[in-house]
């Protein structure tokens, strides 16, 4: 039996899934730790048809834009189903949307009907009504809340639609038949680094191509734990992908994640790098607190795993290859790796079973793979999870590419890269100034592999454009290629490696260009540093803002009672200073101008919605604005004491 469903559009995907997977659970929502409420594929499709019919009765046209404001819950996915089934497109945003954004999005997208999740959102929307001339209908998702004046209840519309369908109403089926591949299924407004939000137009063909091309072999026994914001494109592609193989999506949340992992035993999940960092921190802290015998056992196990995997990757040609590797070197090293692999194997086998499995059980114990996306995964986290046997497949993409451009797969597990581009997807590396093609370029050694440049992409997942922004759309494309604005290289085993944002580049007053991200990733490897941002645009040297790991200092017995105390404690300052010196040194491969001369400890951590995007990417311009005085202070005195580097004299 064929494992997955391929279809022309999402509505047909929903229908095929209902026919094929029938009574299997499609989505499950948490009531209590061990009490979840499932909804089957058939039921969801039926309810979706009912709601779609209700929406059509309310006047929703084919290809109309329908607002969908709220976070993860069953009613959200039901509304999404209904919007697709009546041939419309949704315009989603989370509860954290600001009033200004709401007004802009609703008016710009021409939204006439909007779903709101909570009473709070409903009240805000009602309050803004005078600024929203076109908005006619508001539908409340939360069934436990009484709707305000002029607001409809979701369940009422479902019931009404159900009644119409019982009388033979088949308008939803007609709408499904009328969906074209080029029709939008969603219009996602990205917050954008500057200025107004941009509406990314994504079509059924875009999403369907993702479902078709994302690698992996899953079936209807798989359980997918969902923690990402439901309306984010990364989560939406996961949902559609899961529907195609008949798995069940379990909605979890950051608060209950640890518990849910143990109860649901997910086989697959996706998340932003931050989650893996948190999980890593927690595992390491548990190990530190465990019995000394267990600690030793863990370190032996981890050491053996590193040796074993190192040789395995070398033998199977999956080691990171930024530089070309001559054949003779490979032949010379091969016997060593074969020997090491064979010698370590039995020991690794035992320790993997006795020690590392315990750690995997902390994540449920059944994970076949996990995808990390929405930001760069620090290399040490990447290596850690792959070494303990939880394969983290890092992916790369953007909302504009719905979103996956490339992803590591189990067959192509090159740690440190984001894997090869998806099938049907072409990637070029171009010089971002001259637009010259670097890869593929037969005129360059190795066809241009290993040389950095801007990533350009072309494929079935690339958006139709920015809604009502033809000028902006033209700027983003060049000869049919989408310019991603990210820097990367193609490795010598044909994987893509991301090196940072073009825009994040810091230009020092000396004229040197510095990519802050690799430096930040190294800083984050320190157990003492929770968050950081490297600054120094137009300055003489680099500095960094640091948010220390409070628990680490507290555990080490420092007299600190709140994160604010850290900022003024000289001992903490000293430790951080030494940490920076240690990780960003010439011995670690950083050039002298890439070294951090000074830093400031922040009193509070970066927050989602403030300094961080929903996927925990630092919004650099916000940090620059918000901590302007601190950054000014950092560069105030020219006598800022340079961090002495032990390697400088050599």
């Amino acid at each position, binding site marked *: 039996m064929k494992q997955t469903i391929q279809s022309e559009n999402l509505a047909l995907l929903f229908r095929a899934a209902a026919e094929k997977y*029938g009574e299997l659970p499609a989505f499950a929502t948490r009531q209590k730790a061990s009490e979840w409420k499932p909804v089957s594929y058939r039921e969801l499709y039926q309810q979706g048809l009912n709601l779609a019919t209700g929406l059509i009765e309310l006047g929703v046209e084919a290809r109309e834009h329908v607002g969908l404001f709220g976070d993860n819950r069953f009613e959200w996915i039901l509304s999404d189903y209904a919007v697709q089934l009546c041939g419309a497109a949704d315009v989603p945003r989370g509860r954290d949307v600001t009033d200004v954004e709401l007004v802009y999005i609703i008016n710009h997208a021409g939204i006439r009907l909007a779903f709101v999740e909570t009473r709070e959102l409903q009240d805000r929307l009602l309050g803004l009504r005078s600024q929203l001339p076109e908005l006619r209908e508001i539908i409340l998702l939360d069934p436990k809340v009484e709707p305000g004046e002029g607001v409809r209840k979701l369940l009422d519309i479902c019931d009404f639609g159900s009644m119409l369908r019982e009388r033979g109403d088949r308008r939803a089926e007609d709408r499904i038949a009328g969906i074209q591949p080029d029709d939008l299924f969603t219009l996602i407004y990205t917050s954008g680094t500057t200025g107004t939000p941009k509406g990314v137009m994504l079509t059924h063909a875009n999403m369907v191509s993702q479902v078709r091309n994302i690698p992996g072999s899953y079936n209807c026994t798989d359980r997918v734990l969902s923690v990402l914001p439901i309306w984010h494109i990364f989560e939406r592609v996961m949902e559609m992908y899961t529907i195609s193989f008949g798995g069940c999506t379990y909605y979890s949340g950051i608060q209950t994640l640890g518990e849910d992992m143990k109860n649901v035993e997910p086989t697959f999940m996706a998340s932003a790098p931050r989650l893996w960092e948190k999980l890593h921190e927690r595992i390491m802290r548990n190990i530190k607190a465990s019995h000394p015998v267990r600690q030793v056992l863990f370190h032996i196990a981890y050491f053996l795993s590193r040796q074993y995997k190192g040789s395995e990757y070398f033998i199977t040609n999956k080691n990171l290859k930024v530089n070309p590797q001559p054949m003779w070197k490979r032949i010379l090293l091969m016997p060593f790796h074969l020997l090491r692999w064979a010698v370590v194997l039995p020991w690794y086998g035992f320790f993997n*079973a*006795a020690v590392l499995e315990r750690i995997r059980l902390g994540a449920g114990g*059944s994970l076949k793979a996990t995808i990390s996306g929405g930001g760069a995964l620090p290399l040490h986290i990447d290596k850690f999870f792959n070494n303990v046997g939880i394969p983290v497949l890092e992916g790369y993409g953007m909302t504009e590419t719905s979103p996956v451009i490339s992803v590591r797969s189990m067959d192509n597990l090159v740690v440190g890269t984001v894997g090869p581009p998806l099938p049907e997807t072409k990637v070029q590396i171009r010089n971002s100034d001259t637009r010259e093609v670097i890869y593929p370029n037969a005129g360059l050694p190795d066809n241009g592999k290993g040389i950095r440049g801007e990533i350009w992409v072309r494929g079935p997942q690339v958006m139709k454009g920015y809604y009502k922004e033809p000028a902006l759309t033209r700027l983003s494309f060049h000869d049919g290629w989408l310019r991603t604005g990210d820097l990367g290289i193609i490795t010598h085993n044909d994987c893509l490696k991301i090196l940072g944002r073009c825009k994040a580049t810091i230009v020092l007053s000396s004229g040197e260009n510095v990519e802050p991200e690799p430096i930040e990733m190294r800083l984050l490897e320190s157990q003492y540093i929770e968050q950081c941002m490297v600054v120094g645009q137009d300055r003489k040297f680099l500095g960094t803002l640091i948010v220390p790991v409070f628990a680490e200092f507290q555990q080490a017995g420092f007299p600190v009672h709140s994160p604010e105390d850290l900022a003024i404690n000289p001992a903490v300052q000293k430790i951080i200073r030494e940490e920076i010196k240690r990780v960003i040194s010439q011995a670690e491969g950083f050039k002298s101008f890439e070294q951090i001369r000074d830093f400031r400890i922040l009193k509070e951590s970066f927050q989602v919605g403030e300094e961080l995007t929903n996927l925990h990417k630092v919004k650099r311009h916000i940090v620059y604005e918000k901590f302007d005085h601190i950054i000014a202070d950092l560069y105030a005195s020219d006598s800022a004491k340079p961090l002495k580097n032990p390697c400088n004299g050599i």
Partner: protein
Amino acid sequence: MEFNTQLLYGHDQALLALMIFVIMLGMGSSLTVDDFRAVARKPRGVLIGFISQFGLMPFLAFTLATILKMPPAFAIALILIGCLPGGTTSNMFAYFSRGSVALSISMTTASTVMALLMMPIILKLYTGGFTSQITASMQDSGSGAEFVIPTGNIISSLVLVLIPVALGMILRRKSPVWAKTAEDTAGFVAILVILYLLLTAFIRHGGLFVRTPVEVYIGAIGIGLAGFFFGYWFSRLLGVFPLFQRAISLETGIQNGPVSFAIILLSFQEPFQSQMLWMAILYSTFIVMTSSIITLYFRKHGRFDWEIYRNTIIHNRLFGEKYVTEYPGGFLPGRLLRDPSQGHSPSQRR
């Protein structure tokens, strides 16, 4: 064949005794009284396992020893290995081979207790021919003594190794954290013991590996493989679910090596002691490798039915005991159409 090497001296024996103590303590630490009750609740699987462990395995050992025409002391050791109870390593292998850990624990528990009764009977049944060979050779050399299986000593050594098991169970009751540490340490120590014994044998008597007759190697490797093979097919032909087939197969092939060390040290005299011990060491060494390979095979082979089994368990855990998972028609192969769900062992719930 000439095999008159004394393998262990006084202090080695003391060290070995200590290690056996640690391993058996670890085994006890992984068990609870409820595990014994679980045996009574689900007797079918345990019964099949029992027949496989105490019926099939000793017979296989006897057959191997006879066909290979093994020297009598090695043959007796092989039969002794054949009727040993299961150890905790088999539980770990059962887990990784996607077999039923609950059944594996139940079988280990049941066989450890039943060994007290079964081992003397089985040894008497199968070793007669070999003991008389030894007696004959001893009389030829003029010592005039008679070689008999020291049944009383075997029972008392079994009782002796059960003491740390009981202590471990008490430890588990008093302090689960310490019990877990004891369990982990035991697994590690088990490997150290085998390595230590192999290394001392190698350093002191390097020629031993060469002088050991090839049929002894074949017996040491073959008994485990035969146990896996026949245990698997025996349970499969009886219509047991795949999950249980894998557990029974591994439990049949993997025996409690340290128990045999204890019995041999406490019940047999030189020169037979060293010969028998050597057999037990070789078995313990090879079984780690063969069971690893078998586990990898089972793991791959059993992946599909395991996923379905796990999914059913989790659906019932989250959606209520009454929830029935309905897979689309044609998805489940015929052998899995009957409900593969089963009870949990108390030790599995941590």
